[in-house]
């Protein structure tokens, strides 16, 4: 398609001017773009950086001056974080986040890839219809399920612990996961799988030894996407995690906001505790994360 891996699809004139004045002219033409992108960068970085800086400032400073003036004083402290972790229960909430997010990621991964495999490599009647049903189920908003599921959980006590939220997150993640993984599975080399079938491999054996190892990128992308989705969730936690000692960070921060609406030192530290893990994932696994998000949207 393009001449070289570097060319971004022909938007840039690869030839480029050969004279000095030509090059200067080209650079000047691009100045508005650089300015525009500079403004974009500021708008998209300033708010987050502002909160980060604030989380390390002493309370008195925050009330006196804006965070952009920290450059003058360079006074930092970690007391906000320690206060929020100990006194405000954020440490427990952080642990709760892990407890909620990990099974809510692994379960749909496992169950979803099993189902996706069936939809891609096993021929059975009504397969396409069922798959279309799965796609349709993707669009069901969680609100529709709250009341009946709460009543179901009431009978088995699943709101007292984490079972309720694990199962709910898993169920709601399945349609998208199945859709995603199935679309990937069907691109696997048919010959490989058929060879294994002829050799007498069981379906599960093929799944375990061929399909899954070859699909690690897709599975990783979905896994990361799902993990962050659950980590950042508030609504499901509001409804299904009912013991305050089990509350995740999102819920704890929401309560903090309503009680200490202007204690920005605490709020900033709390918000960053919530953001740390997703940001680390974002920076280290960006490729997979982006893939996960894109997969459902663009071919």
């Amino acid at each position, binding site marked *: 398609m393009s001449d070289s891996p570097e060319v971004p699809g022909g938007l840039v004139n690869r030839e480029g001017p050969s004279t000095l004045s030509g090059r200067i002219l080209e650079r000047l033409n691009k100045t508005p773009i650089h300015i525009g992108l500079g403004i*974009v960068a500021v708008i998209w970085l300033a*708010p987050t950086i502002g909160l980060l800086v604030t989380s390390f400032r002493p309370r008195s400073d925050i009330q006196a001056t804006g965070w952009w003036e920290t450059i003058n004083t360079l006074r930092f402290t970690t007391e906000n974080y320690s206060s929020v972790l100990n006194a405000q229960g954020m440490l427990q909430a952080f642990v709760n986040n892990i407890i909620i997010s990990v099974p809510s990621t692994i379960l749909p991964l496992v169950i979803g890839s099993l189902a996706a495999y069936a939809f891609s490599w096993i021929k059975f009647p009504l397969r396409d219809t069922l798959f279309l049903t799965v796609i349709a189920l993707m669009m069901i908003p969680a609100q529709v399920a709250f009341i009946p599921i709460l009543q179901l959980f009431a009978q088995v006590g699943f709101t007292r612990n984490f079972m309720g939220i694990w199962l709910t997150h898993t169920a709601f993640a399945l349609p998208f996961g199945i859709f995603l993984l199935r679309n990937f599975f069907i691109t696997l080399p048919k010959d490989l799988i058929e060879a294994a079938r002829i050799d007498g491999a069981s379906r599960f054996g093929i799944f375990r030894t061929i399909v899954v190892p070859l699909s690690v990128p897709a599975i990783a992308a979905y896994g990361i996407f799902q993990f962050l989705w659950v980590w950042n969730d*508030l609504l499901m936690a509001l409804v299904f995690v009912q013991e305050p000692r089990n509350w995740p960070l999102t819920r704890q921060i929401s309560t903090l*906001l309503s009680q200490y609406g202007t204690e920005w030192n605490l709020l900033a530290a709390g918000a960053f505790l919530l953001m740390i893990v997703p940001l680390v994932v974002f920076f280290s696994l960006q490729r997979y994360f982006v893939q996960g998000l*894109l997969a459902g949207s663009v071919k």
Partner: protein
Amino acid sequence: MTSSAMSGPVPHMPGAAAPPPAKSSTEGRSWLSALLFLLPTGLLLGVFLVYPTIYTILLSFDRGRRGEFNKFLGLDNYVTLFTKDPNFIDFSQFPPSGALFNNILWLVFYTSIVIIFGLVIAVMASRVRYESIIKSVVFLPMAIAATALAVIWRFVYAPDAKTGLLNAVLDVVHVGPISWLGNPGFVNASLIAVGIWGSVGFATVILSAAIKSISAEIMEAARVDGANEIQIFRRIILPMVSLPISVLAVTLTVNVVKLFDLVYVMTLGGPGTSSRVIAFTMYQEAFPGGLFGKGAAVAVVMLIIMIPVMLFNIRRFRTESVT
């Protein structure tokens, strides 16, 4: 590539002596193994998605005290929602107000501005060498929880110039301070701005990939023919990105219908009820007042809005399967 191509094992390897197994037993075994693979999924989807949907639809026709069926009301809940609940939708004055109307505001402004900004930034970024850095910067908010976004922006919107970034900027030109979240006249605009800020990166990344897939030869040919940049943008780039844009629009629409976290944490639907959205309304109607029937009706309204999206996805899948 559909699996209809896989009608039976193809003996392509030399020396494959065994004849393919009889078709009927293959089919029989397929059904059983498919069942095993699909059983956990089927159980979970049935219990958590299918059953509740049916239950909630039925409950919306009932008073639903305690979430149980106790008094059949027919369409009363819906009638009340649309005519007697000004917090949901209020047609009595122009412009209309209410949660449903707020969702429409979001739908129109959030969706269109995200796509426009995304496209513009994608095109601009493609011209510079630090493109991937810009894309990362703009994409960063996608990793951040809506709850944290709400804290970040409540801080930016703080109504005094010493704390709030926006008011500090305005203070430099001696304007304000403005209470961005306390004024019902533009609290929705303030919230939509945050939503846009959080989603532009998504659009940028998608549209950037789409732009890059435009063939270099077509662009060269157009330039050779004397087309200027704007013409190229209108005649070549736009049509080629129309499919990703429509997919984007659908995804953003889904975001708008499901919008909850941001509104809940930033304003709790306030001041008053001016920034409510329907997902929030469902939560508030059903639980504090115990009006489960009405809450169910709101949920069904959300479901109905999603139906065109469902159909779009199904149709897209069908057309993609054919290729």
